[in-house]
């Protein structure tokens, strides 16, 4: 996946300034930088939730930036879980499976992958933050994407959930997937990360091998 001079302005505030990068399959990229550096904005643009003021995202297989991440074959997991609180994980995943047009076998697959069975029939409202994020990840994986975008996936997670996510990321990378993760918790991804994109004030300060 390619970023070509992505610029985003909100009024007079420039959130991203000509960000360009090239991401390859089978690798994990970490987006890092201080708060307000533009990591979340960049992810949102790549996910298709926001339009850049200038620039393009390109997926070489699919051609020039189709609008939605569905079309881009991406899984997206942001800090909000995108789940209905009044429904159970099961009901939420059934909804998204129906919307993505994937068979219900996918639901069982992601459920097993992230071990959601213990709380599969409890209202999302009653789940811990970590459990909710795992369900959100399951939702993101429903369409079987080979590119995933994660925004602070480890934030507020208990150690068991952290383990689940790490285990999943390892398997994902090994099967040739591309993961783009914005996070502050660089120690948690040290073993998995391949490259680092460091943002500061909307500009790329460093893009290369991860060796923190």
């Amino acid at each position, binding site marked *: 996946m390619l970023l070509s001079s992505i610029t985003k*302005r909100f*009024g007079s505030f420039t959130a991203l300034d000509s960000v360009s990068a090239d991401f390859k399959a089978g690798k994990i990229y970490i987006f890092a930088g201080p708060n307000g550096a533009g990591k979340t904005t960049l992810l949102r643009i790549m996910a298709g939730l926001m339009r850049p*003021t*200038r620039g393009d995202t390109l997926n070489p297989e699919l051609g020039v930036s189709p609008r939605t991440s569905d079309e881009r074959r991406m899984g997206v997991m942001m800090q909000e879980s995108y789940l209905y609180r009044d429904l159970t994980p099961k009901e939420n995943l059934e909804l998204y499976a129906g919307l993505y047009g994937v068979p219900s076998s996918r639901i069982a697959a992601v459920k097993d992958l992230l071990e959601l069975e213990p709380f599969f029939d409890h209202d999302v409202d009653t789940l811990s933050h970590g459990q909710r994020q795992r369900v959100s990840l399951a939702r993101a994986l429903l369409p079987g994407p080979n590119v995933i975008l994660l925004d602070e996936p480890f934030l507020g997670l208990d150690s068991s959930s952290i383990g689940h996510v790490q285990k999943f990321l390892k398997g994902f990378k090994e099967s040739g997937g591309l993961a783009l993760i914005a996070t502050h918790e660089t120690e948690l991804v040290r073993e998995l990360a391949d490259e680092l994109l460091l943002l500061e004030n909307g500009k790329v300060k460093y893009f290369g091998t991860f060796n923190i």
Partner: protein
Amino acid sequence: MKKITKVWALVVLMLVAVDAYLIAFYAPVEAAQGVAQKIFYWHVPSAMVMMLFYIVGGVAGVIYLLKRSERADLVAVSFIEVGFVFCSIVLVTGPLWAKPIWGAWWTWEPRLTSTLFVWLIFFGYFILRNSLEDKDDARLYSSVLALFGCLDIPIIMLAVKLWRGVHPQVLNARSNLPDEMWLTLAFSAVTVFSLALLLIYIRYKKGAPTLYG
């Protein structure tokens, strides 16, 4: 103020002065209604400006919806704002005209009633625009509202006409107007339009510095 604005404003001022003279002295006093009828010289052109400007504003809004051009949105809001001013003028001059003649300020006369509905719709336009913090949302949603408003205008006029009966025979059919009245009306129309266009220009220029990209 830039030079062109000053010159234009001066021209408008002169037009208004001549127009005032024409209305006061040149146009004859209408037999049945007396002096009050002279309000019509500004009432009617204001209604025309309002209608035209709302439609232009609505179309510009649609262009914004399609092309995301902030320039189009600025054009839209300029036309709608000035249109709203003239809409208000229609709603004020209407009762001023009605009271001496029919004895009541508001008589639910079809065209004025339609104008009232339209005024309320576009009042909502400004409320919506100012209530949304995200400026892109504000432009997007107010353009949608303007679209609904403009699409509504013909149906509102039809519905209200049906509801209240036809516009009373104040004009005694256009062809019966004496020449002096026609001339005064035409001149007033020119004056009102010039003023309106000046206001648009000023409004657009005021908003232009905020355009980017």
